[in-house]
């Protein structure tokens, strides 16, 4: 489904060149739940960003559903992200000036859909993560776990095939972390979503189908 071949990422300043990823080869199959592990600064988030087409590799090829995504225009990339990918971040990235339901509706604003349809889908997504009673609340009125559930609802509202989660339990205690992990597992098992999760937590990683380890930008086998 997602195939990364010989991926390299170099960050360059005037004086320093940093190799963030070196010769990464990963293939993620449909319906798979994969975790990426490694110490801080090893390039996990960079790899996830490249998978999510938020960043370009310095070298290598990305193929999604056997289609190389090189030479995609900004518009095509954006449409692809909108329809195929769902993002979950460690720091939630909720917009505090919008209510929970409005935050969840956000991805639908970038596609053609009616207000009524958007609201219906957002309500369904919130119900799925158990937050249908918090729709009119604002993010500042929620706990960390609730915020992450809103972020998950936002990631799944557009029914993407792939969910990319960057340390989704990183800012949460173990109870909340487990709850979030349960939701992700459910999305993978029941809804058939492909999930790629970056994590520090061995316990969480053990609950996924497969583990990719990184160290200093390189894959560890």
């Amino acid at each position, binding site marked *: 489904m997602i195939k990364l071949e010989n991926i390299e990422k170099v960050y360059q300043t005037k004086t320093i060149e940093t190799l963030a990823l070196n010769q990464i080869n990963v293939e993620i199959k449909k319906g798979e739940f994969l975790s990426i592990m490694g110490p801080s600064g090893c390039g996990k988030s960079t790899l996830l*960003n490249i998978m999510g087409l*938020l*960043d370009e590799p310095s070298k290598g090829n990305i193929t999604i559903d056997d289609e190389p995504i090189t030479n995609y225009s*900004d518009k095509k990339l954006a449409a692809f992200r909108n329809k195929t990918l769902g993002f979950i971040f460690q720091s939630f*990235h909720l917009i505090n000036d*919008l209510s929970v339901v409005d935050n969840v509706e956000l*991805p639908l604003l*970038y596609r053609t859909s009616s207000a009524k349809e958007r609201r219906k889908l957002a309500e369904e997504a919130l119900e799925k993560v158990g937050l249908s009673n918090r729709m009119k609340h604002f993010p500042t009125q929620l706990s960390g776990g609730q915020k992450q559930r809103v972020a998950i609802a936002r990631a799944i509202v557009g029914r993407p095939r792939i969910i990319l989660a960057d340390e989704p339990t990183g800012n949460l205690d173990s109870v909340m972390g487990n709850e979030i992990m349960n939701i992700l597992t459910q999305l993978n098992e029941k809804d058939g979503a492909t999930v790629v999760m970056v994590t520090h937590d061995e316990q969480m990683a053990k609950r996924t189908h497969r583990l990719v380890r990184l160290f200093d930008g390189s894959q560890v086998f």
Partner: protein
Amino acid sequence: MIKHLFKLIWNQKRKSFLLITEIFFSFMVLFAVLSLMVKYIQNYSKPMGFEYENVWVVNLDNLTETETDSLGTPFHQAREFIASFPEVEAVSFASQNLPFAASTHNSSVKYGNISSMAHIYTVEDTYPKTMNLQMSKGRWFNKTDQGTKYQPIVITEQLSQNLFGNENPIGKIIKADTTHKVVGVVASYKDKGDFTDPVAGIFFPISAGKDYKSNILVKVKPGTGAIFEAKLFKGLGGLLRGWNVEIEHLTDKKANQNKVVFIPMTVLLIVCTFLIFNVSLGLFGILWQNINQRKGEIGLRRAIGATEKDISKQFIGEVMVIATFALIIGLFFAVQFPLLHVFDLAADIYLIAMLISVIVIYLLVMVCAFNPSRQAASIQPAMALHEE
């Protein structure tokens, strides 16, 4: 998306309050300045009603004698002397409130129960020829009017409208100091410069040989210049010994009168431009700060499907929504001016000023938001999400 932007800004109303206030005040100042400018431009486009080129003013001032009766002869001699030159086309005595002069003479006039303030001018029957006045109805008074029951007068179109509306004013009797009969109407009369309103006025006749004034309007042939002016000045000096003689040109007097409007208008425009420049700088600063504070949101929006263009549109849209809130408040106050007749300006002037102010404010915020929004659009999503 528009609903989303309104919702976002409405929920941020406390944060946006200062910006809304700033835009509101800019709108009000712009509206005030533009109302004046629209009025001046409208007046400028209206006909003057007379010709002032090649018209000179000869001011005669007896330094010792003030009795009008004893001055009658020298005034008459001066008039005849001026009229005797082939360069002179027409001559008319006129009261001190002659075109583009600083002095005015007002009085209340009545027709039945309707009254109106009117400028009072006293001139000779040669005045229309001297000034090439445009008559819209009737005729100018002349020698045949002498001895009639009512003193004949000519009024301006503005006064005709004030007193008679759409009725024909010819033959109507109006009351000023005594009763007077309207024999003619002057199409337009803007005697205080290009930017002023056409006045409501009455022209009273000067009785020949009597009641002469110390100002003589002289219409000279085109091309008549300084040589003739010097000759006239010297001749009058010799004729009226001990008198002070001064020759002015109506074109110069008009330029001076225009300055009375033009200078304050320029000062107002400079103040307004300065204010708007400050608002622009403020807007610019706030937008830069906004973008820096919202990098995470920019990254998120890119991640969930926004293109660079969407981000750019979003930031411009937000400022436009803020401007819309400010303009709604501004327009609420602005419409009170024509509704309550706060100043003596026509409603269409206010409406034009409102429309231009709204366009200027929208353009201003768009220009200010353009660069910061492009900057926001160019932020790499991965970088933005990481920085948050």
